[in-house]
């Protein structure tokens, strides 16, 4: 009897061993590497359009051939429309014979129109989705996101990888673009007194490299889009973006052209090696002043005049020029922010954190106070080295 009972239990267990419950085989998955979100108006109705770059795994791996054989892209771009993003997401399935999987998505590009309408609905969708990661990079573009996602990767295997590596390596070497992930952007949007800047990507056409070939589409970062509350209100150019990064202490390495002696044009270049910043706010009556102290360190990269620069006095001249240049860039960025009435430096947030009593009074009409906020930028710039040569060469 007992023997039979054991046998019965064993038999009942077998169906459970057949495999996982809701498993997905890799060959039945369509892996999404990138997302693009646009908004359009059709017949008076607001429509979201979702563009996904789906990897073709069979064409990835031959990295040296530039992915793909015979000009066949190693990704497939699919666009679908819907009245909500979730609807658009499911509508993609009407064109794809596989289960679309968003877990490996690396970035999301928000088109201009969608960003102008507000980012919160997009962020809500992205964060609520249990497949999409919080680490995806959030980017903006002028025009439609759909158009950016056609770029054919040159050096890396996929466009997602290009964007990811640019965030990890290149952007830190140039400091002309600040690429941030979904979490950081969300945090800036929901925190009072600070407005985020979304890195901007564009497609540029460059002349063909092969005879008979068409122009090549190049993916490029250019500055960033300023978000006020949650809406795109304007763009920072590259220099403004660097000023912005200096002010918030995110500038790392860069090359800065400076002016040392009178006359037109810049005459020296400095490699920035490190920089940091510290913002302090003070309030007198209704007047808010932000003291921004920036410490920058660099080394001489090039020098165009023929005087003996490799002396302490010459170095001091370079440091002065560097300080002035950084100060100008920061001011320029701040003025742009003020013009758009967006607190990109996070001055309000800084006041909130270190001076919360005064902030309570200003919190409500911060955007009215912001245009009158003054900043006082102090830069202590240091040039530590002059590279492998000391004084410039002189022709005789």
């Amino acid at each position: 009897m007992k023997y039979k009972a054991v046998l019965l239990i064993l038999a009942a267990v077998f169906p459970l061993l057949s495999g996982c419950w809701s498993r997905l085989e890799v060959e039945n998955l369509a892996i999404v590497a990138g997302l693009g979100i646009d908004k359009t108006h059709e017949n008076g109705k607001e429509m979201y359009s979702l563009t996904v770059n789906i990897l073709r795994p069979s064409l990835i791996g031959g990295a040296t051939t530039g992915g793909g054989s015979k000009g066949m892209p190693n990704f497939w771009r699919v666009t679908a429309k819907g009245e909500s993003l979730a609807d658009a997401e499911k509508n993609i399935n009407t064109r794809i014979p596989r289960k679309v999987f968003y877990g490996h998505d690396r970035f999301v590009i928000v088109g201009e129109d969608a960003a102008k309408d507000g980012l919160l609905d997009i962020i809500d969708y992205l964060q609520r989705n249990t497949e999409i990661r919080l680490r995806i990079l959030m980017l903006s573009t002028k025009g439609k996101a759909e158009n950016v996602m056609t770029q054919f990767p040159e050096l890396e295997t996929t466009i997602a990888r290009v964007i990811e590596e640019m965030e990890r390596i290149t952007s830190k070497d140039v400091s002309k673009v600040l690429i941030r992930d979904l979490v950081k952007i969300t945090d800036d949007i929901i925190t009072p007194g600070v407005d985020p800047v979304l890195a901007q990507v564009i497609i540029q056409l460059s002349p063909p490299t092969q005879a008979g070939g068409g122009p090549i589409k190049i993916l490029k970062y250019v500055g960033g889009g300023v978000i006020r509350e949650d809406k795109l209100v304007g763009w920072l150019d590259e220099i403004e973006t660097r000023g912005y990064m200096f002010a918030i202490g995110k500038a790392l390495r860069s090359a800065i052209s400076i002016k040392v002696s009178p006359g037109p044009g810049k005459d020296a270049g400095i490699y920035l090696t490190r920089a940091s910043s510290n913002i302090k706010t003070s309030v007198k009556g209704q007047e808010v002043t932000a003291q921004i102290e920036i410490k920058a360190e660099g080394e001489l990269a090039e020098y165009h005049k023929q005087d003996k620069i490799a002396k302490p006095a010459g170095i001091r001249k370079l440091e002065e020029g560097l300080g002035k240049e950084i100060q100008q860039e920061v001011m320029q960025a701040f003025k742009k922010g003020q013009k758009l009435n967006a607190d990109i430096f996070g001055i309000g947030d800084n006041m909130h954190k270190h001076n919360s009593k005064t902030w309570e009074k200003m919190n409500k009409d911060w955007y009215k106070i912001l245009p009158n906020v003054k900043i006082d930028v102090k830069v202590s710039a240091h040039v530590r080295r002059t590279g492998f040569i000391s004084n410039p060469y002189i022709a005789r």
Partner: protein
Amino acid sequence: MKALESEKISGSQFMWLLVATVLPTSLLFIPAVTIEKAGTSAWIDGLVVETIWGIAVVWVCSTLGERFPGRSLVDYSGDILGKVLSKLVGIFYIFIFSYVNAIMVREFGEFMVTAFMPETPLLVFNIFLIGLAALAVRNGIEVIARMNQFVISLMIFALIFIFVLVVQEAELNHLLPFLEGGIKPLMRGALMPMGWQGEVFLLVFLLPYLNNHREAKIAGIKAVILLGLALGIDIGMVLAVFGKAASNYVFPVHVLSSYISVAGFLERVEAFVLALWVGGVMIKVSVWYYCLTLVTAQTFGLEDNKSLVLPLGVIQAVWSITIFNNFREMVDFFVKPWVTFSLFFEFIVPATLLLIAVVRKRGGQSG
């Protein structure tokens, strides 16, 4: 009832059992609620307020237990209140244990469905969890305590693993302003986790199994300090990484572990974290389940609690499904009624018993 009390656990096992009865689900659910109410100072709630409250609960419960060494609560409340009322206390705790345990099973099931396996029915997780716990309960408290020593070490390792790897993302700026809005939001944020920290009241039921009942107070306080530390770091970390957005995440710690990215390749470790978590929740449910069968046996004067495991398990499994209609209902329960509800069975009932025992001079060395 002699057979029931022949088992013995050591002081450190006792301490880790208490840690395991609170830690697994509290880390998962508390940060979001506390951060919503207390804002940037929520971590103080975890680190300080909860610890003080926990010590208070431990003091009351262990003082009560120490007055009647080796006897169970249902037994000695007969001395304190009289036979009839003591049965009422027993029935009350039968209800509490089955109710709260059903909620905890549900919590775990909801977590699994939301975060990992959206297509699997909730019932599957609940039944598996209760089934595992039932096995543990049948084997007795000694087995649970020993298994716990292994599982809790893995859990603490998992926690340290998450916090260390994610520390590079933390921005201490997010913890400012310090004590915004004064002490009021801080206290409001502390209410719900107080009920959680108060779950250490279980020590009054586990005390008869302790080798040396004098160790109870120290072990309990050690457990509470550990819990406060873990919770404080947990809340602080979630805040520092996500800022105020953290209050919007349903399971902040899970999100935290999924946010880990070290050197571009050590990513997506949440499944590993989950595997350890399942073990922790299983211990937690086992301890509550064990106490449930224990109190039931004691109240109705049964010789053994093993025969109760199956029927009570079925009741809990069904209850865990029907108890809430949806996930937010559960969260709403924790934010609103749970506070007074938990205060009542965790603190007021033991404290009243202690008070009456002192007044009527029952138990203790003198009595």
